[in-house]
């Protein structure tokens, strides 16, 4: 019988700790499929975030390093500089990358570190209980913006792709979402392009994935996906923001 669907080699055969309807599992699978397709499992080193996906080092079959909150791009710099022929990626949430780790991502981008960043944007701090993230959109209710995010009081969201694309050291910056099979396929293509940019030595590549957080948003999974399409995507437009030749 012909096998038409199976677990990617790069994805561990373990039960993930995510809530029902969370899109981290899809994002992990896409990264694993890309690693398989590029045949780079044995020379890839992943850097895990702090946050919901903190256990990523147990979910991938490549070498993995757990970094402290926000510092993954610095850790990745250390690895990639001493092992330039390996493939190095970080996997970071919005609090990790756009709040505590803003300096690390901007400077890794400015140095043109030849690494790939998978950036999960679910507009909230999922693991710590749904507080405001730097990506929380205006009006969004969180446990620390109970009346909805008011930019006058709580500041404005940070649009990471738009921020990083003008930086000279970046090679590929794209935003995709994980809300439908079509969007998932586009996301995978973007992740693959990001890894290919690294293999070609072009500089820092980043794919932002708009993700759902049914638990902290207080929505059933399907409604959460609809929310990504109808409310979050208009604020964070999908597409490629930069692609160097």
């Amino acid at each position, binding site marked *: 019988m012909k096998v038409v669907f199976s677990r990617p080699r790069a994805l561990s055969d373990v039960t993930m700790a995510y809530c029902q309807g969370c899109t981290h599992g899809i994002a992990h699978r896409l990264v694993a499929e890309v690693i398989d397709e590029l045949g780079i499992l044995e020379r890839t080193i992943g850097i895990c975030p702090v946050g919901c996906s903190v256990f990523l080092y147990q979910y991938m*079959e490549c*070498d*993995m390093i757990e970094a402290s909150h926000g510092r993954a791009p610095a850790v990745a710099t*250390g*690895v990639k500089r*001493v*092992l330039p022929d*390996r493939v190095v990626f970080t996997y970071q949430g919005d609090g990790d990358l756009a709040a505590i780790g803003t300096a*690390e991502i901007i*400077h890794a981008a400015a140095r043109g570190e030849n690494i790939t960043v998978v950036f999960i944007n679910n507009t909230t701090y999922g693991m710590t209980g749904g507080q405001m993230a730097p990506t929380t959109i205006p009006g969004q209710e969180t446990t620390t913006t109970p009346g909805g995010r008011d930019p006058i009081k709580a500041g404005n969201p940070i649009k990471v792709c738009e921020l990083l694309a003008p930086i000279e050291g970046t090679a590929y910056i794209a935003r995709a979402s994980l809300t439908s099979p079509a969007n998932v396929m586009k996301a995978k293509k973007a992740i693959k392009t990001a890894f290919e940019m690294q293999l070609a030595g072009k500089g820092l590549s980043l794919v932002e994935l708009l993700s759902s957080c049914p638990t902290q948003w207080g929505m059933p999974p399907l409604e959460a996906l609809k929310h990504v399409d109808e409310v979050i995507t208009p604020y964070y437009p999908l597409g490629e923001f930069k692609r160097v030749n």
Partner: protein
Amino acid sequence: MTTKVLMKGNEAVVRGAIAAGCRAFFGYPITPQNEVPEYMSKYMPEAGGVFVQAESEVAAINMVYGAACAGVRAMTSSSSPGISLKMEGISYLAGAQLPCLIVNVQRGGPGLGNIAPSQSDYFQAVKGGGHGDYKMYTFAPWSVKEMFEHPSLAFEVADKYRGPAMILTDAIIGQMLEPIEIPEKIELNLPPKPWATTGAKGRGRNSITSLYIVPEDLERINLEIQANYKLATEREVRFQEFWIDDANLVLVAYGCVARISRTTMTMAREKGLKVGLFRPITLFPFPSKQLLELAKSGKHFLVVEMSAGQMVEDVRLSVNGEAEVDFYGRLGGIVPSPNEILEEVEKLLKPSLYQVMASAKTSTN
């Protein structure tokens, strides 16, 4: 074959680290250690290694974390306020049991303080500094020669017991020039690192983490780390003694203060005062056993530091009430002079008027 050269302490630590097989340096400028990244930017690429000027001390220590994960001898350097920033990363390095070297060319604090020499980061170096139960294998050079030699010792200990090591020095040692002999080649003892994350070619995946959600798992890791500290305490203690045998009063000091105290000791001896010097070279593991032995043989200790009294606590713990331990310290970046320490010595050795009268009374009875 050796070459004799005149060198600054901060250059010697760079040359020593590269000779010790260090192939990655990540740093950030702060006075009085700026020559370390400056020399590194020149010598490290020449040695085929990696130099990156990071955007912050926080990023620099995390780059060290990454390079250490990859199994490379990696280091960073900074000075007191910068070391405070590195503490988060150092705790993670300790938790993930990663060897590396951190050089602290201490300056006056707290806060921005000044750029004068100080020894007030002792607690931070040997008692943890970051969160969690950990320590750093800490070496305290007192000369440019030792600035060259200690990186090799520190890397060996860091590799053997798998944790961060620190060279705790100060603005005087970092900035002073001395002639030293540089060997043409140092025999390297580079252990295999099967745990390193270098890509899973020909083996299962390696993962490096300091995350252990189940308390029993985290306790097990902590016990492993503590067992390494115990082993290092049995095997890696280094110290130096001067004129100890007949001494009534033993000066205890490290780094440049030990050097100043040696001059005090010579001056005291010229006056017929029986003064010796005990100089810890490793601050962790601390030479507690040796100090206790001296205490039991009836010595009186005077600990001299450029701090409000930090190492003195370890001396008191070591002697465990078996001896009198006095303290003399200067703060704010002031370096004590040999004369000033001698005054303290004389105060302690000169019997008080009360003692003179009491002894006169006893003799007339």
